[in-house]
């Protein structure tokens, strides 16, 4: 079950706020600092996902990915095996909205995915990675360590 149930009106402009915050903090305090803050967000805000992963229960992670990407209107493909989760997003909803706002999309924006996922996995026996297939197309991978 999801820790954060969100069913209200979607305010997609927050993707613009996330992007400008990542740029601002990377520019003023360095890329490592914003990575650290994003990992802490993954670790602390998504504590319930992390604690379940530590018990080898990825159910909330799967629910989180499916619900929030569905809610944002993304097309995706999910493949789950005993030791690996592959979540392919064909067009990132955050990038799509930035383009709609007329804002540039740069690779640094993707730190929100790679670092938040890394924070969710920290200390759980799971690792995360992101394979970039195109500017807006990626696969998020979660693997159980052997």
């Amino acid at each position, binding site marked *: 079950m999801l*820790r*954060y149930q*969100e069913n*209200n*009106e*979607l*305010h*997609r*402009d*927050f*993707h*613009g*706020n*996330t992007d*400008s*915050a990542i740029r*601002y*903090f990377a520019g*003023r305090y360095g890329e490592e*600092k914003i990575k650290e*803050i*994003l990992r*802490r*967000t993954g670790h*602390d*805000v*998504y*504590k*319930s996902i992390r604690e379940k992963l530590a018990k080898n229960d990825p159910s909330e992670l799967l629910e989180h990915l499916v619900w*929030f*990407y569905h*809610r*944002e209107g993304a097309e995706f493909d999910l493949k789950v095996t005993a030791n690996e989760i592959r979540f392919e*997003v064909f067009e*990132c*909803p*955050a990038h799509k*909205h930035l383009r709609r706002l007329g804002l540039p999309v740069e690779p640094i924006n993707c730190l*929100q*995915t790679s670092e*938040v996922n890394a924070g969710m996995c920290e200390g759980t026996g799971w690792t995360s990675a992101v394979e970039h297939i195109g500017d807006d197309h990626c696969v998020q991978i979660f693997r159980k360590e052997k």
Partner: protein
Amino acid sequence: MIPSDHFVRFYNELFKFLETLPPEEMQAYYRSISEHQEMHTLALFKEKGLKGMYEYWDHIRFEENCELELELHEDRLVKRMKKCPSLSKVLDNDASPCYSYCNHCPGWVIPVLEKAGYVAQYDIIDHGKPCCRSVIYPASSGKKSSITASEEGKAQK
């Protein structure tokens, strides 16, 4: 991707980091947010004044799911936030809330209003509660912008 639904919980983490730095750093970030928000608001506020501000926050209260009362008068706009969705999410969070989270709102709003020729008097009431009130006046009223937290520290009955 951080879901747009969860942005404010990330925002909270940013403010927690800034709280560890000298206060000028928080102020610099508020200015940056304010400059970003000017793109959506300044022309409207300059052109339509209090009515334009009413239009902006009327739209926001729907899109951001706010329980917000707006009262437009000839000489002022009164905003009463009954349940702020932003602080509500920050409080409904497995991460700890940033004490000064609420301050970002007047932190970006007041500079835009002042550029448009208005001032705002904010009462945050209590940084731990998702409600506040504010009144916007034309700068020609002679009033000054201010931020208070009128109920903070008062004993609970």
